[in-house]
């Protein structure tokens, strides 16, 4: 249930943004969730509903865009997507990799009215 903790942090950010932009109501929140983050959408939606209850984001739709995992091989610079948990360069079989995307957890945008 790390979703509850994540929803709590998300809510803190929403409150700050609402304040900065004088929003009275938030309708929709879109987040980017890297596949590595193991976010369960239904659990995340439930947690979001719970933490936003009674706030200006109550009833807001939470949209989760899942970001696929991409790596770059440190040895041969090959860039590839990770499927089935295999973090090995398909070109040179090295396991020394750097992450390009797939572990992010980002508030992408929000829709609301002032």
């Amino acid at each position, binding site marked *: 249930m*790390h979703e509850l*903790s994540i929803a709590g942090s998300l809510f803190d950010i929403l409150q700050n943004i609402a304040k900065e*932009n004088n929003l009275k109501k938030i309708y929709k929140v879109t987040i980017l969730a890297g596949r590595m983050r193991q976010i369960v959408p239904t659990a995340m939606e439930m947690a979001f509903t719970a933490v936003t209850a009674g706030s200006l984001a109550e009833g807001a739709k939470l949209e989760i865009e899942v970001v696929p995992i991409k790596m770059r091989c440190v040895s041969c610079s090959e860039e590839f997507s990770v499927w089935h948990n*295999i*973090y090995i360069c398909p070109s040179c079989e090295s396991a020394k990799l750097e992450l390009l995307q797939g572990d992010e957890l980002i508030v992408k*945008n929000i*829709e*609301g009215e002032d």
Partner: protein
Amino acid sequence: MEITVMKNIMGANEEKASELRALLKDKKVLMVNLIGSPGAGKTTILENTIAALKEKNYSAAVIEGDVATDRDAKRLQRFDIPITLINTDGACHLEALSIEASLAGLELDKIDIVFIENVGNLVCPAEFDIGEHAKIAVVSVTEGDDKPSKYPLLFREAEAVILNKTDLEKYTNFNRQSFMTDVKNLNGTAPLFEMASMDKPNIEPWLGWLENKLKSVRES
């Protein structure tokens, strides 16, 4: 109106974690975060590790994360080392903020290694940077060989993997080859330490790894 935000949701936790790492760097203290299921043997590994480190004149401290009770902390009291207990009151993981409070209660100038025993759970603790230098995945043969493929983030994030209770392997259907393949696919650069937790724990390779890691923190 639509507002483009692009802000890291975990930003506050990650900033705090970076602050903690800077503090540890300044104090030349290594901090490792043990993550594994309830019953994987984390506390037993700590008992064996702390006893062996004492013999080598290293001073250790432990931050115990437990949902409730102080039973793990009590088990470690006989070593006469600083132990701080964090009862998460139901929360499934530790966060950087709670570690900050625990570190503040330790005399870091007198400590070489801080061990964090995270809440028994393979999912949530892997998500949170709590300022450690390394996450360690602890898994035992009795849990089955499928844990790496079921909980990939932990095994991907871990800097080392401990396979515990190998003395019980003959009584289980643990598929060693499948386990090794999954770990290698997820994290081909992480060393794997096998331990039989009760008798002849075989912790020398693990101790060597800790000593090297401590050295790199001191030299950084």
